[in-house]
């Protein structure tokens, strides 16, 4: 049996211990003279940058029974398939319209809306409750709006899962590697006891490519871009089309916009 | 008696715990009146063939030591290091964590750092290091070693006779280092050069010659027991027999002689006699082995054996089946831990069986000596006694676990069972002061003399204060115990710290509560005090 700090902390409820920052033993000289080279430290030229990353999902284009975005996302991110709804790990998934927008489904909505299963993601909130509750700051919000997870720090306490109003976070209750069909070596897997979620493909943005789901969508239903940039495609869409956001009244400031 | 002036209780409570400015090796001992016991008289040492009998007092500058006293002590130490694993080990492994410090009643009562068991042991350990370890020989003080000088010897005397060998420190020591063992060896060494206290040696000499520590001769013992039988008849209307030196008795009964010579022990003794009469026990007292208390324990292992030998010898002579022992503390330490080893095997006796209940006392099958509370608890449990606890209604009792039965035997429940069956008003003292954590009366191990009264009152303070709390809380007026030294010295202690509390043995309760066949209506208890009145 290999000891697992996550198990331990889960059992002991000793999340207080983890307030200690992991970097306390990196000496100052190591940080300053070696890791931070002079005149460097910015993203490479071709990396995509933004002030506020956001995504628009055009529900008029999104077709039923298509899972291209999900398949692409889960494949490159090594999302495991446990074959068991209780243990399910998901970055993109679908839900009935009525549960995606519980406040927006009138009693006499037609068959089209009733049957519709819009894709749902992490909303990369302006005001993310998951970040606020994380005891180790494993979940944090980048200045470009991406709500990121540092798996190294996650202790599996699942406070973020309790805090997220969208159910966008999944816990690896089991070792995910044996349940990952084809491992993509360019992206790490997780270990048992770590929570995961959509990261807006920040590793792809750093290399200058759009998120995998956006690329994979043959209907071009997904538009990704800088909502803060008046000239961006997504900004134009949001200005011209009517959009809904999930449970926006909660004040979380979700950044996935559903176009109708 | 002593000329020392004893401070008032309030004054005594002003205890200074801050250690002195000077290091302990550089702080000489101060023989302050009231805190030490008189040296043994020459006649007592001579009676016991012990070395260096002379007229001296610890307050003298010249202790009239033999010429080669240092060599005698060092040879004695070497001998004992080879004979006692406890001594050698306890010299070596103490880490001076200090957990024992505030467990000692003498330290709590005096604040003298050399009364911390750890430092009291260091007094002798420092000499051990100097003469018996390489580091001590080479590095001296740096290794915690020091020369054996007359001042060191005086310090030993002062502090080894401020230890009642109660073993409370040993309960708390992570290695079980027992100051009692160290004190016993320390006193043996002092005895080798004739430095001992009269209050331990005179009783020992008396016991050796007359069989009991007060030196009472056979006729006196008989008179006293008859007198107690008269008192019993007066209180109950029942005439109990007084069997003495009776051959063919089933059981030899041995109890501390204080039980038949001094109040309040006499009432306990009356309790025994009534009990034995009531159950028809075929027993006998002995005038030769008329002392249970072994004053050798306060002198040396050899002296323990010399005095203790009488009990088996007398049991053999009288042809009894087994031996029953009365309520006594250090008597029971000797019987429980030393008697069989020293003077056994007692193969001429039978394994003890209660003739009344048929119970076999498995735990005493080799030593063949049963504690009276074990015996009586068994009688009560088997319904052999008719008891009326309401006759003890005027007693509001708390119970003092005597050190030796507590920490050198483990006798806790038997007396409590008897108390619960004979007394309706029983209140325990604070948890930290009873059972294995019980506090000493402050006057055991030969220190119950009057010249040492201030130290007794200091050492007994923790016990007395625990009693005072139950007096305040529950209106306790009586302190029960199963030790003759307790009955003698706790009385003084109570008068000083908690006036109004008197002391009794557990079998006095039994005597009061026991409903005897053909007894008259009782109006008083064994003390002649009205029953029911408060």
């Amino acid at each position, binding site marked *: 049996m290999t*000891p*697992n*700090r996550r198990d331990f902390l889960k059992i002991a409820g000793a999340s207080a*211990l983890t307030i200690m920052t*992991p*970097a306390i033993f*990196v*000496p100052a000289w190591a940080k300053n003279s070696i890791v931070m080279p002079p005149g460097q430290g910015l993203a490479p030229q071709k990396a995509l940058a933004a002030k506020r990353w956001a995504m628009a999902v055009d529900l008029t284009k999104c077709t039923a029974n298509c899972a291209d975005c999900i398949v692409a996302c889960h494949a490159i991110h090594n999302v495991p398939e446990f074959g068991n709804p209780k243990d399910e790990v998901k970055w993109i998934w679908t839900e009935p319209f009525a549960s995606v927008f519980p406040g927006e489904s009138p009693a006499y909505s037609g068959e089209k809306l009733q049957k519709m299963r819009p894709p749902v993601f992490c909303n990369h909130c302006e005001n993310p409750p998951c970040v606020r509750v994380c005891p180790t700051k494993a979940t944090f919000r980048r200045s470009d709006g991406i709500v990121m997870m540092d798996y*190294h720090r996650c202790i599996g306490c699942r406070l973020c899962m309790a805090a997220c109003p969208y159910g966008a976070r999944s816990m690896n209750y089991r070792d995910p590697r044996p349940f990952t069909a084809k491992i993509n070596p360019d992206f790490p897997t997780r270990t048992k006891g770590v929570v995961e979620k959509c990261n807006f493909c920040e590793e792809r943005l750093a290399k200058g490519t759009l998120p995998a789901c956006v690329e994979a969508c043959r209907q071009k239903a997904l538009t990704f871009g800088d909502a803060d940039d008046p000239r961006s495609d997504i900004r134009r869409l949001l200005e011209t089309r009517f959009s809904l956001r999930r449970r926006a009244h909660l004040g979380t400031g979700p950044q996935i916009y559903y176009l109708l | 008696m002593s000329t020392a002036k004893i401070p008032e209780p*309030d004054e005594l*409570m002003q*205890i200074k715990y801050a*250690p002195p400015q000077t*290091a*302990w090796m550089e702080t000489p001992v101060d023989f302050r009146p009231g805190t030490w016991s008189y040296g043994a008289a020459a006649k007592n040492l001579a009676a016991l063939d012990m070395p260096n009998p002379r007229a001296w007092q610890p307050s003298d500058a010249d202790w009239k030591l033999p010429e080669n006293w240092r060599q005698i002590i060092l040879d004695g130490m070497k001998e004992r290091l080879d004979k*006692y*694993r*406890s001594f050698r*080990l306890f010299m*070596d492994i*103490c*880490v*001076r*964590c*200090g*957990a024992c*410090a505030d*467990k000692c009643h003498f330290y709590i009562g005096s604040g003298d750092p050399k009364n*911390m068991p750890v*430092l009291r042991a260091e007094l002798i350990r420092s000499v051990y290091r100097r003469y018996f370890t390489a580091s001590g020989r080479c590095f001296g003080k740096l290794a*915690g070693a020091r020369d054996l000088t007359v001042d060191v010897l005086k310090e030993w005397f002062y502090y080894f006779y401020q230890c009642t060998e109660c*073993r409370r420190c*040993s309960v*708390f020591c*992570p*290695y*079980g*280092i027992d100051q009692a063992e160290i004190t016993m060896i320390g006193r043996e060494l002092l005895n080798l050069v004739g430095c001992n206290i009269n209050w331990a040696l005179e009783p020992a000499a008396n016991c050796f010659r007359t069989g009991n520590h007060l030196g009472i001769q*056979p*006729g006196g013992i008989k008179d006293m027991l008859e007198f107690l039988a008269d008192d019993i008849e007066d209180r109950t209307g029942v005439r109990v027999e007084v069997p*003495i030196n009776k051959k063919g008795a089933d059981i030899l009964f041995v109890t501390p002689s204080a039980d038949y010579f001094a109040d309040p022990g006499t009432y306990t003794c009356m309790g025994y006699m009534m009990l034995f009469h009531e159950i028809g026990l075929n027993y006998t007292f002995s005038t030769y082995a008329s002392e249970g208390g072994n004053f050798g324990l306060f002198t040396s292992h050899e002296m323990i054996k010399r005095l203790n030998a*009488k009990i088996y*010898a007398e049991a053999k002579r009288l042809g009894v089946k087994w031996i029953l022992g009365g309520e006594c503390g250090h008597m029971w330490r000797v019987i*429980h*831990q030393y008697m*069989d*080893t020293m003077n056994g095997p007692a193969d001429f006796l039978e394994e003890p069986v209660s003739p009344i209940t048929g119970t076999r006392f498995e*735990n005493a099958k080799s*030593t063949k000596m049963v504690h009276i509370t*074990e015996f009586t608890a068994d009688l009560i*449990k088997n319904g052999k006694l008719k008891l009326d606890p309401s006759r003890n209604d005027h007693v509001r009792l708390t119970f003092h676990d005597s050190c030796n039965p*507590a*920490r050198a035997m*483990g006798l806790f*429940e*038997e007396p409590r*069972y008897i108390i619960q069956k004979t007394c309706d008003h029983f209140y325990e003292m604070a948890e*930290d002061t009873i059972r294995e954590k019980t506090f000493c009366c402050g006057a055991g191990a030969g220190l119950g003399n009057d010249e040492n009264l201030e130290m007794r009152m200091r050492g007994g303070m*923790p016990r007395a204060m625990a009693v*005072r709390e139950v007096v305040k809380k529950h209106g306790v007026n009586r302190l029960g115990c199963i030790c003759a030294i307790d009955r003698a010295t706790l009385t003084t202690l109570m008068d000083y710290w908690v006036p109004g509390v008197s002391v009794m043995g557990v079998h006095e309760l039994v005597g009061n509560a026991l409903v005897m066949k053909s007894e008259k209506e009782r109006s008083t208890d064994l003390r002649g005090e009205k029953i029911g009145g408060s």
Partner: protein
Amino acid sequence: MPMRNLGLAFVAVLLLALPAAAAAAADMTALLVVLPYGVFVLFLGGFVYRVVRWAKAPVPFRIPTTCGQEKSLPWIHNNPVENPAGPLGAIGRMAGEVFLFRSLFRNSQTEIVDGRPVYGSAKWLWFFGLMFHVSLLIAALRHLRFFTEPVVPLATGLSALDGFLEIGVPALYISDVTLLAGLVFLFLRRVVLPQVRYISLFSDYFALLLIATIAATGLLMRHFFPVDLNAVKTLAMGWVSFAPSAPADASILFYLHLCFVFVLIAWLPWSKLSHMAGIFLSPTRNQINNSRSRRHVNPWNAPVKVHTYAEYEDEFRDKMKAAGLPVEKE
């Protein structure tokens, strides 16, 4: 002066650093080929000598300190551990002492409040004492990774368990933190409490400072000034396979660490630290309280001069007869 011992202990530890510094500076690494064997012999031989010395002294009497009800009448519940009536109880009692510091757990603190002594719970000494000892044991066992190839699972398992908080890289060992915490407590206690300061000898401070220095140099090497672990392991494996070779180069920290460790190991059996072996022999703890049901034999039990009944009767015969007491000889 009470603080003199503390000062001397500081000086002694500083002085010990000199040979290490000298060895590093003067490239006397050849010492590392032979010295460790001497140290090990002192350690092993020392402990065997001490234990045999203790064991040669007999236990003449059965003197367990009884901290619970004895086994007497069948209906009275006895305390089988605090007052063992059989070997299992004694083993349990010793296990409690060795592994859990049972007696120290009883520790209390006496204070005079409102003119009377009160006894408060004082478990900190137990807590930090146990923590210190367990940490020291774990830290020592973890070092087996340098002395075994392939590394024993015990060492890897302990390291994994010990580092499972995964704080920092290399992972911070919990036992290192608890060891230091224990040391700090034990040291401060010795310095701050006047009574404990008063009884403290040079060796009491020296032991704590020595272990603290070992822990500090170890932690510095692990987290701040890394050393070449391959070289360390090769050195250690050289020792245990009797093919020692001096390391090519190593940091002064490593020499300091080694120097202090050698001093500790060599000194351990000859000092108060021998309590780690001595506790097993403590007669007040390891004995069964059955002295009344089984005779304990004292190997040097010799006859003593007693006062016989015959002598007694000779002196008191007339008085006994006068009192109507039976006598043996008329």
